[in-house]
C-alpha cells in the first residue's frame, strides 16, 4: 500500500503545479504515462441540474447553459508527431481546416478506419506493446503512444461568444464524452488534459474567458495508456462523441450533492445529505432543502446557513431527518420524491435552485440473498451498449427512449451499463421507470490476460501495478460521484474482464468505505480466486452453463450468484433459457442475470454494389484483425427492431418476476 502512495504523489504534483497558478504547457508524453490521466480537471460530482430560478427549471430553458455542439473546425493527423502543434494559438491560420460535426466519431466522419475487434488490443499484429511497468521494461512506455507511427489525432477548433446568461459568471466546460485522451486550450492558454472516455471531463474556463471571440481548441488522441484500460469489445472509435456544454455558475452554486435517502425496515424513511457549495468572493447566505412527494406535499424543510468564510468551496451536511412512512422506489414501481435545494444570498434573493428526484430503497444481502426493500431480488437483466447503426455510440434522447420502451414492454427489469458509464439521461430514465442498474465503470482489459480463450495474465493491467492504480481508482470514483444519487443504481460494477489484483481490491474497498447503501459487483475475481473475499459482494460469472451454477450453489456458496452476462444472443440464438430460469425456483441464492446483449452493433453504410443502405460489421472496412460479426449479439437488431428471440425473453422475464 505504501508503494501506492509514492505513485499518487506524481499525479498530485502535476495537479499542484497547476493549482499554484503555474500555467503549464501541455506535455505530449502524458499519453505514454499511466500516472497522468487528469490534469486540471474539475473534481467529479453529482449529475444534478441547476438553474437560476424555478421558471427556468420548469421550462428546461437553462440560461446558465450554452451548447457548443455543432460544426467545428477540424484537422486530422495520422500521429502525434505530424499533428499541428500550434493549432490552439489565436494567431494560427486554420483557413484550410475541414469542418466536422460535434458530437460524432472521427471514423464515421470518414477520416480514420472503422475497426471492430473484441478482446485483442486494436494494434494486435501491427505494433508490439506491453503496458508501462507491466514487465521489467525500463523505458516505462516512453514514446509508446506519443511517437507511434499510427496514433491518429483530431485537432478541433471552435470559436464562440458567450451567451447573455453566462456573462460575468464563473464558467466551466463539460465534455460529456471524448475518446480517448484530450488536451484543451482556450484563447491560446492550456486548460487541461483528460482521459476516461465515458465520463464528463470538466474544466474551469473562467481565467481565460472573454465575452466575445473565444477560441476553444481540443486535441483528441486516439490512443494513450488509457487504451489499455478501454479494451471494450466494440467498434474502436475516437473523437468528441458526446455533448460539449458551457455552464455558468451563479454566485453561489451547488458543486456536489449527495442525497442519502434511507428506507428503514419499518417502512419509514429518512434523509441526510452532504453538499459542496462554491461561492464567488464575498458571497454568503443560506441553503434551503425541501422534499416534496408526488402530490407536491412538503415532507421536509431544512435550512443551513452559508457563512462568508472566503473559501471557494465549503462542505455542508444535513443530518438525518426522519420522514415517517414513505413509499419505496421499487422495480417497475418507481416512486420518486423531489428534493429541492435553493441557495439564497445575504439579501434573501434566490441565487440557484437544484432539484433532484430521489427514491427510497434498500438493497442488502441478508442470509446470502440480495434483497430489495426486504424482498428477494430477481434480475431479469440485459447488458446495454449505447448504439446507433448510423452514429455509433453517439446517441441521443430518442434512442434512449426507444430502448426504454423496448425494455419495459419485454419485462426487462435490470440493465448493466456495459462496460462504461452511459449518458446521464439514461440513469434518470431508469429512475423514472423502475429499471434497476448495474452501473459499471469504464474499465476493460481482457486483451491483457485473455489470450485465445486462455487465462494468461503475465502482463495484465491493472493487476497489482501501483502505477496503474490511480487511473483505475479515478474511473471508479468518477462513476460513483456522478451517479450516486440515482435510486435505480443498486450495484456499482468495477468494470469488465480485467482479471483481479490489488488495484481492483483497492477499488472495491474504496466503494465499500464510501457507500454502504449499494452492492459492489465484479466478475473477474472468478479468474483469480485469491481475491474473492475482498472483491465483489456477489458471485458473478458470465456464460456459466446451468450445471456450473448448480455446482457452485450446492457446495457451501459464500455469496449470492448472478450472471453478469448470459444467453449470448449472437445471430439466431437464445435457446435453452428455460434451464437458467428454473434455477430461480431451485435456489434462492441464484438471482438471475443480464442477457448479452441489448442491440446488435453494426453500422449502416451504402453498399457499393447495390446502392442499398446495408448493415456492416467487423472486417467490412478492411479492418484487420477483426472479430467480424461478433458484435451482433443483441435481442434487437441494429435498426432497433426486435429479434424473433425477444418473445422468449418477454415470456420468461414476465413469468419470473
Amino acid at each position, binding site marked *: 500500500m505504501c508503494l501506492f502512495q509514492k505513485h499518487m504523489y506524481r499525479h498530485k504534483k502535476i495537479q499542484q503545479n497547476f493549482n499554484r497558478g503555474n500555467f503549464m504547457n501541455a506535455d505530449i508524453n502524458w499519453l505514454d504515462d499511466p500516472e497522468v490521466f487528469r490534469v486540471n480537471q474539475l473534481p467529479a460530482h453529482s449529475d444534478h441540474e441547476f438553474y437560476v430560478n424555478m421558471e427556468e427549471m420548469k421550462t428546461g430553458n437553462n440560461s446558465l447553459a450554452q451548447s457548443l455542439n455543432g460544426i467545428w473546425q477540424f484537422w486530422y493527423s495520422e500521429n502525434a508527431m505530424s499533428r499541428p502543434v500550434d493549432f490552439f494559438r489565436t494567431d494560427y491560420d486554420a483557413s484550410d481546416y475541414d469542418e466536422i460535426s460535434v458530437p460524432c466519431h472521427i471514423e464515421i466522419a470518414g477520416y480514420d478506419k472503422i475497426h471492430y475487434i473484441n478482446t485483442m488490443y486494436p494494434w494486435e499484429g501491427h505494433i508490439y506493446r506491453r503496458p508501462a511497468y507491466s514487465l521489467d521494461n525500463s523505458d516505462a512506455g516512453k514514446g509508446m503512444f506519443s511517437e507511434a507511427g499510427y496514433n491518429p489525432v483530431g485537432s478541433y477548433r471552435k470559436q464562440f461568444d458567450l451567451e447573455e446568461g453566462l456573462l460575468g459568471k464563473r464558467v466551466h466546460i463539460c465534455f460529456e464524452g471524448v475518446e480517448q485522451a484530450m488536451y484543451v486550450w482556450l484563447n491560446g492558454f492550456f486548460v487541461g488534459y483528460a482521459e476516461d472516455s465515458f465520463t464528463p471531463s470538466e474544466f474551469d474556463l473562467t481565467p481565460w474567458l472573454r465575452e466575445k471571440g473565444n477560441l476553444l481548441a481540443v486535441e483528441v488522441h486516439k490512443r494513450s495508456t488509457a487504451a489499455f484500460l478501454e479494451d471494450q469489445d466494440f467498434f474502436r472509435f475516437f473523437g468528441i462523441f458526446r455533448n460539449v456544454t458551457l455552464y455558468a455558475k451563479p454566485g453561489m452554486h451547488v458543486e456536489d450533492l449527495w442525497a442519502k435517502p434511507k428506507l428503514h425496515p419499518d417502512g419509514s424513511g429518512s434523509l441526510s445529505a452532504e453538499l459542496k457549495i462554491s461561492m464567488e468572493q464575498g458571497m454568503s447566505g443560506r441553503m434551503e432543502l425541501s422534499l416534496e412527494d408526488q402530490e407536491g406535499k412538503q415532507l421536509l424543510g431544512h435550512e443551513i446557513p452559508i457563512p462568508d468564510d472566503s473559501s471557494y468551496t465549503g462542505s455542508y451536511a444535513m443530518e438525518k431527518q426522519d420522514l415517517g412512512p414513505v413509499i419505496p422506489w421499487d422495480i417497475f414501481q418507481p416512486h420518486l420524491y423531489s428534493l429541492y435545494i435553493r441557495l439564497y444570498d445575504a439579501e434573501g434573493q434566490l441565487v440557484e435552485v437544484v432539484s433532484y428526484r430521489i427514491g427510497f430503497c434498500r438493497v442488502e444481502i441478508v442470509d446470502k440473498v440480495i434483497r430489495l426493500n426486504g424482498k428477494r431480488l430477481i434480475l431479469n437483466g440485459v447488458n446495454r451498449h449505447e448504439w446507433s447503426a448510423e452514429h455509433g455510440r453517439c446517441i441521443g434522447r430518442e434512442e434512449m427512449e426507444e430502448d426504454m420502451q423496448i425494455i419495459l414492454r419485454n419485462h426487462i427489469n435490470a440493465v448493466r451499463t456495459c462496460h462504461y458509464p452511459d449518458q446521464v439521461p439514461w440513469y434518470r430514465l431508469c429512475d423514472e421507470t423502475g429499471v434497476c442498474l448495474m452501473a459499471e465503470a469504464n474499465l476493460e482489459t481482457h486483451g491483457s490476460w485473455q489470450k485465445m480463450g486462455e487465462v494468461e495474465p503475465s502482463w495484465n493491467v491493472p493487476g497489482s501495478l501501483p502505477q496503474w492504480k490511480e487511473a483505475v481508482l479515478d474511473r471508479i470514483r468518477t462513476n460513483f460521484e456522478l451517479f450516486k444519487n440515482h435510486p435505480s443504481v443498486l450495484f456499482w460494477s468495477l468494470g469488465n474482464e480485467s482479471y483481479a489484483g490489488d488495484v481492483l481490491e483497492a477499488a472495491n474497498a474504496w466503494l465499500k468505505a464510501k457507500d454502504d447503501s449499494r452492492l459492489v459487483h465484479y466478475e473477474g475475481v472468478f479468474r483469480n480466486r485469491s481475491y474473492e473475499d475482498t472483491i465483489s459482494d456477489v458471485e458473478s460469472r458470465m456464460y456459466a452453463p446451468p450445471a456450473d451454477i448448480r455446482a457452485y450453489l450446492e457446495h457451501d456458496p459464500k455469496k449470492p450468484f448472478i450472471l453478469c452476462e448470459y444467453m449470448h444472443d449472437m445471430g439466431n440464438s437464445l435457446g*435453452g433459457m428455460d*434451464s437458467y430460469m428454473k434455477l430461480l425456483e431451485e435456489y434462492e441464492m441464484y438471482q438471475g442475470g443480464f442477457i448479452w446483449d441489448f442491440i446488435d452493433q453494426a453500422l449502416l453504410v451504402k453498399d457499393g454494389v447495390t446502392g442499398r443502405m446495408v448493415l456492416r460489421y467487423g472486417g467490412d472496412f478492411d479492418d484487420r484483425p477483426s472479430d467480424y460479426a461478433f458484435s451482433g449479439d443483441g435481442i434487437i437488431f441494429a435498426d432497433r427492431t426486435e429479434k424473433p428471440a425477444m*418473445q422468449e425473453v418477454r415470456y420468461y422475464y414476465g413469468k419470473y418476476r
Partner: protein
Amino acid sequence: MENTDRKSDRQDLLQIVYGDVTLGVHGNCEGEEFHYLFSYAAGGMESLVSGGMEWMYRPPRPCFWRAATDNDRGNGFTLKSGMWLAADQFIRCAKIDIFVDGEKIPFPSAPENNRYTDQEAASELEIVYTYETITVPSTQVEVSYKMNSHGAIQVKAHYYGKEGLPELPVFGMRFLMPTCADGFVYEGLSGETYPDRKAGGSHGVHEVQGLPVTPYLVPQECGMHMDTSWVEVRRSRTLDNRSVSRQKASLRFQAEEDSPFAFSCLPYTASELENAFHQEELPLPRRTVLCICGAVRGVGGIDSWGADVEPAYHIDAGQDIVYGFHVIPCRDR
C-alpha cells in the same frame, strides 16, 4: 389436356397414366382438377398442379442441413456434422416402388407398362422413393406419397438411423416452388421458434405476408415454426407463359393428427443462406422454399464460442426418424 377422354363416371377414382418416365395421377376434388407427375428419372414428385398452377419447381428432397447459425460455427457443430451439407445437396434415388390399391405392382417402365390403357384408375395410389445418402457411412431415406381419390397426398418420410453418422441439424422434406409466395398462414406458435426456444410462442393461426428472412447480420438458419398443425402457402405468380391474369391459389400442408411438424417458408435454400456474408448478398428472391421438418436441432444460447446445444435438443443420426403430413390441394380463394 391429355386426359379429356377419361371416363366421367369414375370421378371418385384417381386416373392413372403409366408413362415411360413418369407416373401421372389426375383427378378432381369438388370440381377442382389436380394433376401429379411422379418422375422415375428425376426421382421424385416432378409436378403438382392444383388451383390451376404448378407447385413444384424441382422434385422435393429430404433435407439434412440448415444454414449454420453463429452458435453452430462457434461450437464446432459445422466441423462435426458438415457431412450433412453435402448429403443435403446431392442424393441418389436408389429405388422406386408403386402400390395400386394396396398392391405392389411390377415397376411400370416400358415395355411393362404396355399392358396398361388410357382408362386406368384406382382409389388409392402410393409411390415410395428410396434415397441413399452420400454420407459415410451411407444411410437411406424412404419418402412415400399416398394419394386418395380426393387428391390429398399423405407423405411419409422415414430416415433410417445409422451408427457412426454425426448429429443432424434437421431432418425434413424440402419443397421448391416455382415463384415467390405472397405469404403463408399457419396454425402453430407465433414468431420464429426452435425446440429450445419456443416457450414464448403463442399458439394460434398466424398470417405472414411475403417470405420474410430474419435479417441476422450474417445470413443463417431462420424462420422455423415449431409445433405446427398446418400451413397454407399462398401464391399468385407462376412461370406459365400462358398466364394472362393473376390467379390466387394455395396449397395446404397438414400435420398428422397429434404429430405437429416444424416448417420454414423462405425464398432461399439452406445452401443459399450458407453462402452469404451479408443479407444483401443473398440472391434476388425468386422461389419459395418450404421445409416441412420432422426433427429440428435447437439453436443453443449458453455462448457462441463452444457451448453445445443442450442434449435434449440434439438429433441423434443413429436413431430412425419417421414422420408424416398431408399435402392437400385447396380451392381457389
